[in-house]
């Protein structure tokens, strides 16, 4: 007993000395490493979601489907030419950071908010925002509540390890409300606790609320309050150190947005393959134009992406329209239609 203790202490001491004395070159991802390991493995490992319908959901057929999952599929199509060569690792809010830091996943696309601290400490690079969201609160319609302040004196459920957990804490404290905040480990248990009546309301990104509302026996029993508590720009991210892979993720997303601008879809892509428009030629890597070759992958990567996954608008319509998340007039419309989606030029 005592020996073991002394032993542990010695080890701890040595370790601390070792760490602080360390000045050597550090090991991390280098450009090209992630693509190499994806090619070798033959599939992309993508951190995703399993519980949020429309975004990342394990359906009855045992397949992961959703808006976020489609961006994993697009990156797999770009690198491997096969959108189905994806293995999804479902992650709860609190598991994300460790999954990213340990480098065990190639990328993550799981309604994750881009924040300063995550950018700095997760050892990750955020890709372009794919969905501009904000935090909301859902409560039961029967209460007849129309604002968060009216929930004073009740309990609210939230999920651990999310930005929404921290936002609601700040909101409640800043507004002097007496709302008890219960933190659950994952989305399903949060939802169960809310349904059972343990909490009168629950909070997460408004897109998540819309998704879970649809799962309710009777969606009209639940209302999403009008307030938006925060900015939640959601998008994919990849481990830092490998700029090449980060660029691939970034340009796959931009490519899907650009394709929508030009009206290129998975249906009509073949008719664009002999396009004379130099902009389209550069996007698709046609003729002598360099596209994917800048990124060190198949020059015509966007052809695979669009054919197998579709452009941004198609992905949105397929996954999010059924949730009732209207795109028109929202932040997620193209910049030409008053939204925030804007891709730098392919050139």
């Amino acid at each position, binding site marked *: 007993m005592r020996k073991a203790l002394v032993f542990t202490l010695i080890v701890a001491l040595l370790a601390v000395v*070792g760490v602080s004395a360390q000045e050597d070159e*550090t090991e991390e991802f280098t450009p090209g490493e992630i693509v190499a390991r994806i090619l070798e493995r033959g599939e992309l490992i993508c951190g995703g979601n399993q519980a949020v319908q429309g975004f990342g959901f394990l359906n009855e057929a045992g397949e992961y489907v959703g808006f976020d999952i489609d961006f994993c599929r697009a990156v797999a199509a770009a690198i491997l030419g096969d959108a189905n060569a994806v293995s999804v690792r479902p992650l709860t809010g609190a598991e994300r950071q460790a999954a990213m830091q340990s480098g065990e996943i190639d990328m993550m696309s799981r309604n994750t908010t881009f924040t300063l601290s995550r950018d700095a*400490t997760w050892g990750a690079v955020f890709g372009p925002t794919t969905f501009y969201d904000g935090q909301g609160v859902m409560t039961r319609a029967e209460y007849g509540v129309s604002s968060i302040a009216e929930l004073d004196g009740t309990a609210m459920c939230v999920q651990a390890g999310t930005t929404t957990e921290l936002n609601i804490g700040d909101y409640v404290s800043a507004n002097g409300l007496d709302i008890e905040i219960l933190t659950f480990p994952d989305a399903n248990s949060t939802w169960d606790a809310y349904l059972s009546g343990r909490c009168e309301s629950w909070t997460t990104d408004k897109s998540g609320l819309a998704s879970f509302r649809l799962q309710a026996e009777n969606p009209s029993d639940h209302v999403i309050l009008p307030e938006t508590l925060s900015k939640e720009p959601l998008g994919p991210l990849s481990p830092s150190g490998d700029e090449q892979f980060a660029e691939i993720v970034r340009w796959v997303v931009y490519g899907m947005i650009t394709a929508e601008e030009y009206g290129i879809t998975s249906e009509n892509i073949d008719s664009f393959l002999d396009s004379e428009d130099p902009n389209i030629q550069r996007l698709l890597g046609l003729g002598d134009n360099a596209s994917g070759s800048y990124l060190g992958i198949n020059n015509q990567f966007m052809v695979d992406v669009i054919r197998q996954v579709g452009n941004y608008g198609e992905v949105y319509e397929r996954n999010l329209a059924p949730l009732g998340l209207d795109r028109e007039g929202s932040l997620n419309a193209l910049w030409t239609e008053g939204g925030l989606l804007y891709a730098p030029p392919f050139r």
Partner: protein
Amino acid sequence: MSTANPTAPKQIEITLPKFLRDLRVLQAISQIVFVLAVTTALSILIVSVAQQLQARGAVPNYTFLSLRSGIPLSEAPDWYDVNDTFFDTFTVGIINTLRVVSIGLVLSTILGVFLGIFLLSSNWLIRTISRAYVEILRNSPLLVQLYFWYYVFMLNLPRDETGIPGEGIFVIPLRAPLYIILGVLIWLFYARRTISPPGVLGGVLLGAVGMELIIAVFGYNLALMLILAIIGGAAFFFAERITKNELQVGRIQGIGLLFTLQYLAALGFTLLERIGALSYANATWLEVHPAFFISRSGFISPEFLSTQNTLPWLGISLLGLIIAIGLNNYWRDISERTGRFIPRTTYATLIFLVICGGAWLFFSSQPAPDTVTVGDGEEAVTMPVEQAREEELLTIHQDAKISSAPLVILLPQSERTRFGTRILSGSQISPEYAALLIGLVIYTSAFIGEIVRAGIQAVPYGQIEAARSLGLTMPQTLRLIILPQALRVIIPPMGNQYLNLSKNSSLATAIAFADTYAVGLSIMNTSGQSITGFSIVLLVYLTMSLVISAVMNFVNSRFQLVTR
């Protein structure tokens, strides 16, 4: 002539320095080499993990503990809020872990000891039920059990939808604990008498059920209760005239006692209310005594409030305790010297009670304070109580505390809102805490029960026979002969169960209870400090384990046979 044998092979001798041939030195060297190897391996591992993190901008450090955490916690002391630091958040987690572990250790021990005894019961039903309990609980995963207690049990309790008392809320009237206390008192009283204690207990039970039926039909009516009390008293005194059957006598006396005592207790409570020791503002409280609620928002029980007379009263009571102990020791000395019997414990207890009670009466006969301070900080104003009450400036708690009684018991009160019933007063145990505690205690008690059973069986049967032949009753045999011997066998494995319970408490994160681990996870996520965060969590559990095993080692050394 040479005596040397030229054909003998020349012996090759490797001469090691002498100290290297010493077994102890060799052992020491091998140990040192081993420690060095392991240490290097471990430090390389730790260093490379640290580097990996450093490379990703997550330099492990402990300075983040002084940053604002922003993590909201439901289960936290009043001082905590989101603007506190990560260190404070950790502190709350540790407090919560200790709350569960400390109470859990005590309860699982009590339950486990009973279980161990029941496992050996000669009653088939008790034995089989406790065997099934042990087998089911030991052989299913704790996480599943916790999910059951939280999502299936706690979250399906009645929702608090109506006022108090009302449908929907499961209200336990004050009578219920009263029945239990009365039952125990009556049993203790009869345990020394010839009249059959089982009969009496049965009588108490019958009486309680009968009482509830009468109340359900006629309502709680003081006059009716008085009549019942008188009938009960008469039945108690004349029981032996009515029948000669001991069991019947016990039964009648049990019913009679319950009827009488429960009336006296009700009177006692009324008296407490008169002298301001109990407050229940808005219910005719003799009708229902809603003292405990079990609902989806947790367990709610009466709450003790201190007043300005609490400290002086506690001081005097402490003085009384010291005097009583002193006198007790003094009388013991006299008894030992002279051989005279003095019922010293009874006297000492009486003296203590008289001092406490006297002080209580003295304080509560003082006038209650007539001014009160409302509002806080800069805006605080002092005004007459009457005015504050009229203007409804006082919270229920403030109002209840305006009393001269040293302690005020505030019963749970509630209010109807559009969200259902909102609890306004009473101490509340959250469903998360309750589910975790119930889950841990029940799970651990199954293991402790087996240890206790084995310990008891380790005592030779001859000891029990010898105790019987001395005329000791079964409870006496258990208390005086079996348990002291069994304890020596029971204590060492018990320590392991305590360690298990303390570590298992970290499953709390699954059911939204903010213990050290759950809070640690949130902290690691928010601050990005996973290595340092984990090291703190580990340190907390390590310290807890070391303290528990140190205490158990100490207890063990006290209970082992002293041998020379």
